[in-house]
């Protein structure tokens, strides 16, 4: 894995991180990128939030449920 990832590559890796266990070098590469990229940091947070929202959607106790 190359040390410098583009934002496009980061978005794919962030998403894959929700579906498989990332390797050590992948996690390091992400951290290095987040340290210098506000957009990808926001993206990472938002994708995590999306998963949380999907959990709520299936959850019986969320608002607006019959």
């Amino acid at each position, binding site marked *: 894995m190359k040390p410098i990832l583009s934002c496009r590559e980061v978005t794919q890796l962030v998403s894959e991180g929700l579906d498989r266990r990332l390797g050590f070098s992948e996690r390091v590469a992400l951290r290095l990128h987040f340290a210098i990229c506000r957009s990808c940091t926001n993206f990472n947070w938002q994708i995590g939030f999306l998963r949380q*929202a999907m959990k709520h959607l299936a959850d019986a106790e969320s608002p607006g449920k019959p």
Partner: protein
Amino acid sequence: MSPPDDFRRRIEQQRAYLLRFARLQLRDRDAAEDAVQETLLAALGAEASYAGRSELRTWLTGILKHKIIDAIRRAGREPQASLDDAEDGAALEELFDPSGHWGAPVPAWRDPDASLEQAQFFEVLESCLAGLPAKTARAFMMREHLGLETDEICKELGITPTNCWVMLHRARMALRLCLEARWFGAQETPRR
């Protein structure tokens, strides 16, 4: 009221919830009705195995997930007239410049946790889900709604893990954009 009738009534009370759950995944009212009907019948015949071990709704949802996967399997054998893949990927590419950087910065979302308390947010989320291309949506919902692992999804859909990850990624990109446009980006103006 005799115990069997009581069980039937308690199961019946969960129908609306189950139907909603099934429709989110299957996107087809009839298929969702069928899956729920099969679930309720299976549950009635399995009262002994329920025995109050878990929440009734949780137990029923577990049965429903299997019925939904059966329905996806059946539908998978039918030919699909979906051309959405190429179109889907092209839209994604437009977010980045040729060097792979964001074309426009990704703004932070203000107080997302508060959104999870609002029914309107979930209406928007459901409508964003409905806007996903069919194949992409099916893979995403299998992952995030049914809670299947990637290898199970690959097996059911007959695709490679890499394909699966690409589809899930596209779904998340599209949903993020949709939520930003229709919910988080609209926060400055009063909501209807």
